[in-house]
């Protein structure tokens, strides 16, 4: 059984239909890259998988681990092992990173029937993972993402992923706004998480992230559909040739 099976998924925001029939199957252990031009629906797909209410699913189905994902609340999806690394991590003044992450981890552990961690055990768990992400431990006492630089926010996302140990990680433009050093740290964190039990969907606009996180499959999204799929070499082709000839320009239809 596949870990994730998306069939003919349609979704809209307001009156605008953004996803227009996505089909995608992801098995445990695989890394899938989703590429495509701006506005093609990449981020929408990521948010729909995490359960953002802003996007309304109008058709199709998503089966995750044998369950109807679309019927689940966002927190239940997280408890079942889905993790979204946000393109724009949200700042939450007044809630410390430590409190937030401990609450999240313990909710998920409780759901999995594992004993909840006290503050000391929690610190032991996070210490190593902070080192991998080259994060300063004082960050734990700061409010969630508040006053973090763009790079710190992205590293914090991957750090959270490392702590929460999801079954399916969706990385939404995790490379955007990162310089090459920060990109390598983030990629190393992601690569350390690769395992036969875990799948990843890496959403990105550029190929450069995929030199660091080498995918098993690459899909090209355009106008809300996957228009091309292939192996890791597809990313390099796209880098060389661009997205232009992958789909027809709408204005070219029905004219002349």
């Amino acid at each position: 059984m596949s870990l994730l099976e998306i069939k003919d998924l349609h979704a809209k925001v307001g009156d605008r239909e953004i996803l227009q029939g996505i089909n995608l199957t992801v098995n445990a252990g695989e890394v899938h890259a989703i590429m495509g031009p701006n506005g093609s629906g990449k981020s929408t797909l990521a948010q729909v998988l995490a359960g953002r209410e802003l996007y309304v699913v109008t058709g199709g189905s998503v089966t995750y681990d044998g369950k109807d994902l679309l019927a689940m609340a966002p927190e239940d999806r997280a408890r079942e092992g889905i993790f979204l690394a946000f393109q724009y991590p949200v700042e939450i003044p007044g809630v410390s990173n430590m409190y937030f992450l401990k609450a999240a981890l313990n909710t998920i552990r409780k759901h999995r029937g594992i004993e909840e961690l006290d503050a000391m055990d929690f610190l032991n768990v996070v210490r190593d993972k902070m080192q991998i992400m080259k994060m300063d431990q004082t960050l734990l006492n700061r409010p969630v993402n508040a006053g973090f630089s763009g790079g710190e926010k992205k590293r914090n996302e991957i750090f959270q992923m490392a702590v929460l140990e999801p079954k399916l990680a969706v990385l939404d433009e995790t490379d955007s706004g990162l310089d090459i050093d920060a990109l390598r740290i983030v990629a190393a964190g992601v690569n350390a998480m690769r395992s036969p039990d875990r799948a990843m969907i890496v959403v990105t606009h550029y190929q450069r992230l995929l030199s660091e996180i080498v995918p098993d499959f690459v899909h090209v999204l355009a106008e809300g559909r996957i228009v091309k799929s292939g192996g890791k070499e597809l990313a390099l082709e796209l880098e060389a040739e661009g997205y232009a000839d992958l789909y027809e320009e709408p204005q070219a239809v029905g004219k002349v």
Partner: protein
Amino acid sequence: MSAVAEQTGEWLEQFTNQPPAPAWLQSLRDAAFARFAELGFPTTHDEEWRFTNVAPIARTAFTPVAPDALLVYPESVKKLAPAEAEAHLARHAAFDQNPFVALNTAFLGNVTVLEIPRNAVIEQPIEITYVAQAPLPAVSRLVSTPLGERDTESSVGMSADAAGTGTEGTPCATVAHPRTLILVGANAQCTIVETYKGAGTYFTNAVTEIVVGDRAVVDHYKVQQESVDAFHIATLQATIGRSAAFASHSISLGGALVRNDVNATLSEGSDATLNGLYIVNGTQHVDNHTLIDHAMPHGTSHELYKGILDGKAHAVFNGKIIVRKDAQKTDSKQTNKNLVLSDDAVVDTKPELQIFADDVRCTHGATIGQLDAEALFYLQSRGIGKSQARRLLTYAFAQDVVDRIKVQSLRDSLERILFEKFHEHAD
């Protein structure tokens, strides 16, 4: 005029029934009552009371009781008799414009007067707790009604009916006029925690005057935890000496109808900090009026008031800052933020800056908002349940005001109260 007389008539009877006072005090009371009789209770036509209708107070007949103050203070603090503080008593909180201050002054008697000597540094907080008396059962009730039933009666919600009109057989709401005067000597340092609490329907009409000596440092906390059926009207007047620092933290949690006036008058180089947190639900109404008067140059003031509203609650914030002609180099910042958790809660917020000097820096800002949907989703996407996420964000909203509370025990108990409150809200 006749409407005013109608409203103040009951009070006249209470006023004249007071035992006589020494001449200096009696003349003060007389002047104050005369002013109260002239002003009458304010109406919503009065700009200062535009959003706060005190008619439920005006139309209720209360039974007067002496305020009940519990005091905890270290030996180095002196408790004075009112006569020893004649030079300051009622000289700071003016009663010519505010009828409630006038009414309080008209019933001056049982005053809490504390003096902190010059140069004294007092680490232990000075605690002043006013506990309101529950409604007094009418005599006939006492005889004919079993105890349990009377208790149920007196816990009925606020309204003129429940508060009682003093007729036979109805429990009669009490009124107390707590009065506090704190004299802080030059260079002294102290922390004052004033708490108001009670059960049932009653009216607390409090006035606190604080005189902060030159270069003194004073932290004042007011924790308003009145019953949800109570009326609470209070004025805090701080007169701040040269280069002195005064901080007021006003925490307003209880009360059906609440009005807090916090007034600070600055001298040269004074610093005033006004923090506030109000949390209201149901049909609670809380009105915070602040006045920062920069009378002299080089003063600084920082004001942060935050409110959390649920149900059909109504909150009013009015922050007046006066920078007088001589108050050059004033630096003043005012912020009011409101978090509205329901569709029916109402906030009226208004900054009121009157600046007569030209070399000053004054900023102000007010916001009214709801819980951030993106932050909610972010928390949920990490496995945190929706209700817990709402609670966490609501708690976080209040966090910066709570963080400014330096008294550890108070901060702990407030955090506990907030936690419990938001638990109710969320579930």
